[in-house]
């Protein structure tokens, strides 16, 4: 069946572009490099897990958290296209994420391993 030029809501592809919904996305080359970087970071994460000296050091947890955050950001920016999308979408994602992370940190200080025992 040939493709018509309008979707179920009657909007054409150019209408979507005009409304800021369809953007020029990265090329296959970018996606390939992103996948490679994600794989390399994952390999490093697992590798450091098996180094007892590093696991016992103070650097272990921050290193893993940073690598995880980098992977998270790369997927969100390049695969979810948030780097190229409208700022409202960025706000809809980063707003709740920031609230959630702050809540998690507060909970860790109140009840978790970071808790401060007064008295």
């Amino acid at each position, binding site marked *: *069946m040939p*493709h*018509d*030029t*309008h*979707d179920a*809501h*009657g*909007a*054409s*592809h150019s*209408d*979507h572009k005009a*409304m*800021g*919904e*369809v953007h020029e*996305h990265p090329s*296959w080359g970018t*996606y*390939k490099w*992103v*996948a490679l970087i*994600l*794989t390399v970071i*994952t390999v490093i*994460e*697992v590798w450091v*897990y098996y180094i007892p000296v590093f*696991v016992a050091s103070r650097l*272990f*947890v921050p290193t*893993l*958290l940073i690598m*995880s955050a980098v*992977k*998270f950001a790369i*997927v*969100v920016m390049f*695969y*979810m*296209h948030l780097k190229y999308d*409208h700022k*409202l*979408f960025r706000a*809809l*994602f980063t*707003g*709740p*994420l920031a*609230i*959630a*992370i702050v*809540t*998690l940190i507060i*909970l*860790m200080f109140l*009840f*978790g*391993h970071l808790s401060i025992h007064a008295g």
Partner: protein
Amino acid sequence: MATTAHAPAVTHGHPPTTTGLDHRKIAIWAFIGSECMLFTSLISTYLVYKGRSVSGPFPHEVCNPPQCATTLKPILNIPITSVSTFVLLMSSLAMVLALAAVENKDKPGWAGTGAWGRALASSKLWLLMTAILGATFLGFQAYEFTSFVHEGLTIRQNLFGSSFFTLTGFHGAHVTVGVLWLLTLLAIDMRRGLGPKDALIVDISALYWHFVDVVWIAIFTLVYLIR
């Protein structure tokens, strides 16, 4: 009527929205924002209860009698989970290629003319690949859950079991929904073909799929790797 004179021309597609953006895409980002809060609450629960189980098995520590009837080794299987993490990351790559194939379907030869170019331009191939990789991840999770139960860790065994199964179970349920969503898109693609006019619905499903991936990125580090 006076108001009809100001009504947008229906033949030009969507009526203008207050934001100038499609409501469906705003809705999926708002949904993803709320899902961030859901998964952070589950991760918080896991982290708050971490190390507070009074009976084994434990995630990273050996459990010796009298805490356990017999000596139990750490229960988390990092090599297996690393492979399943890699599988989910590759499913995200397949998903962006599926979206690119749908968006560029009206541009013949955009991906090249060779066999690889034809493969890159096939939305059916990449949708199927994403669904298969998602199902493979679920297979790994089913194997992990089954082996844990055989080793004595159930959702009722201890705090670790309760928080772990709840967190990873919720994530697995999301992956399952994603796989069903992908199979639905594949069925539509097989039946009538997906083209640039369908880019938005594929984009929305892709956003959901990548979100499931980023949640696992957090879970893999916070639950599996950090001791």
